[in-house]
């Protein structure tokens, strides 16, 4: 057994999701406006995490299960500012000393904007994200390190082209890419990884599959039905006490949830297929998966030195480097476990 174990269970991951949901509720909506000649537009957008969970699976994957992002508020205001047209003001009783009686004068279209079209989609549009990810780790040992001892490697900047060349050969596998583009893409990632000559434990993210629906048809449709029904109930049953209207809405709510679930069946089937085939469907998701995995295979999302500088010192003493061996990340049905042997 490893000498250091840190485990985080599924409940903790979901607590973090709930915390994000609570945090988003407290974040004020962001708004803005702009005008383009006579046309103007303003918006107010807020986000709420209204559903979803994270499952840890025995296949070693972290499964993001239908995280729902509801836009509330989502108010768009379109406006047109017409040129002001003054009407009236003509003199109807002229006298030698000037006009004694004039028609009343009014300005047409003097408001700004004159025509306003509010589009309120609050609590209607829902985005949905599902996906499965794995984390792997490996140790990077640079050839350039040679026989340098740990402290010397810690203090020696990596001036070799080892990482650059490795990235270039990886990017070079993309067909039809000109050499200049291969070099440019590969070189852009080098600064994220290159530092000194010390060995490093690196952690890589792998996107097994994901499905991002910017507008989730099922949930958005259910929300439209729900909002419409609420509106009708509030209008038709206006004389009825609000508590009774609330009961009626509560009775109808499971029906809308059922409609959403039925409408979501094709999506669920696609997600199941994605999970089985380990590939995202849809051009955008497939491209995103390829890019994430391509970059993710080169650039670790986290890395640390081995031996790890546990105590740094500014007074000229050597840092205390502690070897870290057998680093592993394991996901099972219960928890996410990181373990290592220290020393």
């Amino acid at each position, binding site marked *: *057994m490893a000498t250091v174990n840190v*485990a985080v269970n599924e409940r903790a991951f979901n607590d*973090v999701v709930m915390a994000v949901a609570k945090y988003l509720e407290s974040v004020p909506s962001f708004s803005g406006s702009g005008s383009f000649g006579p046309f103007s537009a303003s918006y107010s957008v807020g986000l709420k995490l209204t559903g979803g969970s994270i499952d840890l699976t025995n296949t070693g994957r972290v499964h993001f299960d239908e995280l729902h992002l509801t836009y509330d508020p989502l108010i768009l205001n379109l406006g047109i500012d017409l040129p002001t047209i003054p009407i009236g003001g003509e003199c109807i009783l002229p006298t030698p000393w000037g006009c004694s009686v004039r028609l009343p004068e009014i300005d047409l279209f003097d408001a700004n904007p004159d025509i306003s079209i509010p589009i309120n989609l609050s609590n209607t549009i829902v985005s949905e994200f599902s996906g499965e990810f794995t984390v792997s780790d490996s140790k990077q040992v640079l050839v350039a390190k040679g026989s340098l001892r740990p402290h*010397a490697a810690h203090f020696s900047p990596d001036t070799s082209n080892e990482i650059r060349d490795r990235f270039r050969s990886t990017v070079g596998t993309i067909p039809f890419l000109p050499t200049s583009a291969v070099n440019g893409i590969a070189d852009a990632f080098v600064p994220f990884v290159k530092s000194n000559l010390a060995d490093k434990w690196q952690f890589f993210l792998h996107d097994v599959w994901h499905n991002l629906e910017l507008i989730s048809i099922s949930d958005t449709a259910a929300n439209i039905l729900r909002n419409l029904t609420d509106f009708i109930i509030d209008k038709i049953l206006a004389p009825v006490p609000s508590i009774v209207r609330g009961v009626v809405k509560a009775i109808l709510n499971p029906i809308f949830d059922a409609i959403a679930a039925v409408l979501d069946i094709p999506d669920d089937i696609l997600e199941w297929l994605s999970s089985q085939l380990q590939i995202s469907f849809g051009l955008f998701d497939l491209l995103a998966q390829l890019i994430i995995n391509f970059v993710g295979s080169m650039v670790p999302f986290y890395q640390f030195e081995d031996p790890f500088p546990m*105590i740094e010192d500014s007074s000229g003493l*050597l840092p205390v480097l502690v070897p870290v061996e057998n680093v592993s990340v394991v996901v*099972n049905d*219960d928890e996410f476990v990181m373990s290592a042997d220290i*020393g």
Partner: protein
Amino acid sequence: MAFTDHCDIFAGIHEKSFNNVVLQLQRQRPSLFNYGTTTFANHPELLCNQRIIRMVDPEVRAFGNPIVKEEPLLAIPGYDGPLGLEYCLQLAELSIDFHPSNVHSLPVELAPPLQSQHLSLKGRACAGLDCPTQDLLIKLAPTERPFYPSISKGGFIKQPPREQPNDGPVVKQTPTRPIPFNREGIICFCLDLFVVLHVEREGGAGDPVIALRLDNLEIVDIKPDGLENAVECFLRAMLIMGVLPKVKLALDSLILSVGNVLTIGPTPISPLVPFNPAIEDDQIKAFITLTV
């Protein structure tokens, strides 16, 4: 059984990790463990415990880091001159053993084996004094004016007018020069110290505190027994009154609030988590709970 059956986040550190880190500290920061006067600082090969000197990482020397932290010379009580004795002090073989006991062989005075939820610490302190030869000491001793007592008629001894002892400090001058080093005169001894401790929760329900409690300590093989008991009593007083009160940890300070929406804190004590932190299976285990 999962690590997090009764908590959200679990962290367990095996005694091997602690002991390996101490070992790396000894190898890479030897000046934290080896103390001595000029000659010992310049010649670590003269230190008493050569085992920890041999362990020193070659890069410490390559980077010019000190192996021995230089200490002032040892003043000689009653002597009022610039000379002082050379000595060295080393802390070696520091280690920790979490229940069940399998790293340390506890002395019988500590009633082995280690009790549940207890830990033991072992340290070996080695000290050396460079003892000058008697001839050298005689040669270096100050030549003060002889004492000429005069006897009065009444038979009383009259004190001559020379410097009188007073209530001032025994050592008046900090030594600045070592007595010439005598390589054959280094006298070394090592003492093994064992300490048994446990973690205890104290304070009220609203202000819980984790404290380290000393159960017992033992210095092995000092004779006579009275000296051993006196030294142990002194160390016990130092630990209980001087050291352990400073390693109390307020549990409230361990509770982190992330953006006022997520609280991360120690899992409360319950029948399922009877100890937090727990000292068991050769590890120290911490159980953490998240609350939204």
